[in-house]
């Protein structure tokens, strides 16, 4: 079937403003729907990409809207890969353990929840330092 062999790649470049999160979600949604994911999974992918880009805006660019975020979506062999690249401050999560949610609420530790959500929502999450000033988050979801 065509659906099985379906493959495509597309990219979006936006400035690092939270204003652009809705554009990023729409871009992600279109590609995820086209790939054949269920509505529920499409929702998970959209949220994971939103969280990754919010982290880039917040931590890599420290809310400066002048940075660029490159989002590449690749779909091939039932594997949906979103790569989010920035040129801001390097982020190295190392082996950050999953938060103890009860402690989190107690301490009002809002940061870190996005990373935790991404791990829960996607099949794979990787942080890559592409070069001195280029960082990438790669999110993967398989059609099951």
């Amino acid at each position: 079937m065509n659906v099985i062999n379906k493959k495509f790649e597309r990219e979006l470049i936006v400035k690092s403003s939270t204003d652009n999160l809705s554009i990023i979600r729409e871009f992600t949604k279109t590609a995820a729907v086209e790939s054949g994911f269920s509505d529920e999974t499409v929702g998970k992918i959209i949220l994971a990409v939103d969280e990754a880009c919010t982290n880039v805006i917040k931590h890599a660019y420290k809310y400066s809207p002048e940075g660029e975020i490159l989002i590449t979506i690749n779909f091939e062999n039932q594997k949906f890969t979103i790569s989010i690249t920035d040129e801001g401050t390097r982020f190295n999560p190392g082996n950050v353990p999953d938060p103890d949610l009860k402690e989190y609420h107690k301490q009002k530790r809002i940061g870190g929840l996005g990373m935790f959500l991404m791990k829960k929502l996607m099949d794979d999450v990787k942080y890559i330092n592409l070069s001195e000033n280029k960082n990438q988050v790669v999110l993967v979801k398989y059609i099951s």
Partner: protein
Amino acid sequence: MADFNVNVRGVGSVSVIDVKGYLDAHTAPELENAFNKLINDAKFQVVVNFNDLSYISSAGLGVFMAYVETMRDNSGDIKFSNMKDNVYNIFDLLGFPMLYEFFDQETEAVNKFNDKG
């Protein structure tokens, strides 16, 4: 532009916040403003009605985490109602049901405050 709207109305002594559309890092400050105004007006009993909310990210959930303690310290609370499954699932993933009360209907949440009063 993300489509988001906050409306605050009084139901007896309880303040109901209606949230509508998409609550993300861009729109979360609007919800923070609503909470700041309630605190300034010494209104600590809050129900958030999610009937028209389509989407929430951790930035939105963070707002409730940031304000709930102030409400509770002043004999109030933040309670949630009318949440769609896709939105509830995110609250659930982040452990909110351990620490917050969720209701199917707004009136149940409002009455919970009144029962205690």
